[in-house]
């Protein structure tokens, strides 16, 4: 479609007629072939740029020692990094000269960070759906004063970067923590609570979807005797499952990758999320690339697979607006 000229008949006809240049020109089929080869070469080299980093990370996770990812295949295969990440103790040679060894076992198994991230992201996303879904319903189906200005200001106010509001988050959580222990600093519930503020782009997304659903369905339910809440729960929600799936996946991935807020709110290793934990392997002084690589593969693969499986959903949601953060 984007290369329709390849199929143009007039050009070909003129080629055949023009005898003097015919010998120097390629036939239509040959030109097509060359273009196809070029296109494939381009796509394949691009694919290499995309895939090689991932392959190198897998290789680094199996490579003995902590080297930055730099090889397609590990020279010395070792499962130590994987054992470390999974929390399985393994023995390490401390002094090659004397053959002295020691048993290495992480204080906090890095796998826990992955689990923490899943927990935080799932609960936050569920909360996001609950809050933005109900709000979107009100914006889409009710008329009230200042509806449009509120809707616009939601979007503008959300532009304030979360990172820079950290002082305020700290103050809020410090405060709540003094009254409700499990909602304070260094708690995952506190982090989830902070994450629940980021609803406005999702309100817009869900509202956009609700707007495409004909109101007559809900009116029909109303005649059937359903209250607005029953209509919302029994008619609109089941019909809108696709957009909720999109919002869930997008916000899930967003929170999986969220670093700054989590790094300030969560202070002890057993509470860390994946992003904080993964970065903790890479101190300025000592970069534990092997361990990082193992953790990255272990946690990145399931998320990627889930995303790829839900791809069709997500693409549909993306084209209807909104941007990954």
């Amino acid at each position, binding site marked *: 479609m984007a290369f329709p000229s390849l199929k143009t008949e007039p050009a070909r006809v003129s080629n055949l007629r023009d005898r003097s240049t015919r010998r120097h020109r390629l036939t239509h089929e040959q030109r097509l072939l060359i273009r196809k080869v070029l296109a494939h070469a381009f796509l394949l080299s691009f694919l290499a740029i995309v895939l090689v980093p991932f392959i190198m990370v897998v290789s680094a996770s199996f490579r003995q020692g902590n080297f930055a990812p730099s090889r397609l295949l590990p020279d010395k295969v070792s499962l130590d990094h994987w054992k470390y990440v999974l929390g399985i103790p393994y023995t390490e040679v401390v002094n090659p000269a004397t053959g002295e060894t020691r048993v290495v076992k992480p204080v906090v198994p890095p796998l826990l960070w992955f689990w923490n991230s899943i927990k935080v992201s799932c609960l936050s996303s569920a909360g996001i759906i609950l809050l933005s879904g109900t709000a979107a319903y009100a914006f889409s189906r009710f008329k009230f*004063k200042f509806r449009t200005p509120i809707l616009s200001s939601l979007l503008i106010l959300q532009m304030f970067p979360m990172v820079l509001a950290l002082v305020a988050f700290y103050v809020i959580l410090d405060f709540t923590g003094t009254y409700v222990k499990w909602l304070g600093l260094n708690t995952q519930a506190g982090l989830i609570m902070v994450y629940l503020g980021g609803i406005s782009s999702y309100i817009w997304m869900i509202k956009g979807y609700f707007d495409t659903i004909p109101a007559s369905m809900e009116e029909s339910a*109303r005649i059937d*005797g359903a209250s607005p809440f029953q209509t919302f729960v029994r008619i609109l929600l089941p*019909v809108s499952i696709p957009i909720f799936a999109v919002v869930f996946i997008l916000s899930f991935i967003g929170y999986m990758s969220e670093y700054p807020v989590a790094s300030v709110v969560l202070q002890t290793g057993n509470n860390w999320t994946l992003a904080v934990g993964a970065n903790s392997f890479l101190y300025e002084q000592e970069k534990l690339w092997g361990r990082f690589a193992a953790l990255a593969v272990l946690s990145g693969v399931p998320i990627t697979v889930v995303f790829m499986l839900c791809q069709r959903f997500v693409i549909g949601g993306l084209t209807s607006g909104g941007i990954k953060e």
Partner: protein
Amino acid sequence: MSDGSVEIKDLVKTYVDDRGRPTFTAVKKINLLIQNGEFMVLVGPSGCGKTTTLRMVAGLEKITSGTISIGGRVVNDLEPKDRGIAMVFQNYALYPHMTIFNNMAFGLQLAKKKKDFITETVGRTSKALGLDKMLERKPQALSGGQRQRVALGRAIVRNPTVFLFDEPLSNLDAKMRVQMRSEISRLHGQLGSTMIYVTHDQVEAMTMGDRICVMRDGNIMQVADPITLYRKPENVFVAGFIGSPPMNLLKGKIEQRPEGLVFTEMGEKAGLTIPLKPPVADLASRYVGKNIIFGIRPEHITEECTATCVPVESSVDIAEPMGSESLVYLKAGTGTLISRIHGEHIYHMGQPITANINMEKVHLFDTETEKVIR
């Protein structure tokens, strides 16, 4: 069966924006009485307020002022479910995530009816509509006509005193539409409930309604049975809206000539001049020298002349033979006249023809008030 009469009194609907400022008035103080068991059709071009009126009867739209009573009870402040109504929507409004059975049973379930009762009612209704084989399917698996039947069934199951239809057939293809039309008419005969039916299609209105209410710009133009509406339109709008092809409407003047009263068409070129005979001449005598609209239906322009006919010289512009009859567009005066002529001949472009206007069937309208002159 309870009383299903619907009375609309001084009904006004003004839409407001988010801040409560009025934007436009869709229904302008209309009055309408619909008898118990009557099939009333609301018809008019889009934006005439017919759907808004229906939605106010249903309770889906807030009433700005005036009252609506169903069975003698004012329902202004009643929820839709408490008004004893059921509604069929243009796009069927079926719940896509529920089976056909659940679609039909939804209202009964919400009303906390007994399970046996629901199964029995839905079963009986679906059987009557020929849907009993597909109760476990979802709406996507059904054809347009079947979906419309489910929507009908969902309304019937509620056992309402008043059925409301909002352009229910406009999403169907032509053949299906004709079939569903007769099915709804039959349903009306069987149930005997009051039905209010909104459509923009005047053919549907004529074929289905006991009475028809023609609306324009939020006003009622005429309420009458189909034949009266066709024969005796109250105003230019109804005359032009009802009937296909529409009535020929010529703008002109009544003049007193030596040979008697004549109608002269206005226009840059020489317009038609039609001598007037009784009974039209008597009506026209009050309008000498005044502007007037002259209306004649296509079937009353014929080749044969009757006793009260007036011949007009013209030539054929286009002819559309339809078999039993032909629609012939005649060049006469400044414009064209459409005539419906029994189709024994083939007509050629430019062929001269003498068209005879049946003076008994002529309608005259006041240009200013657009009302018929009687």
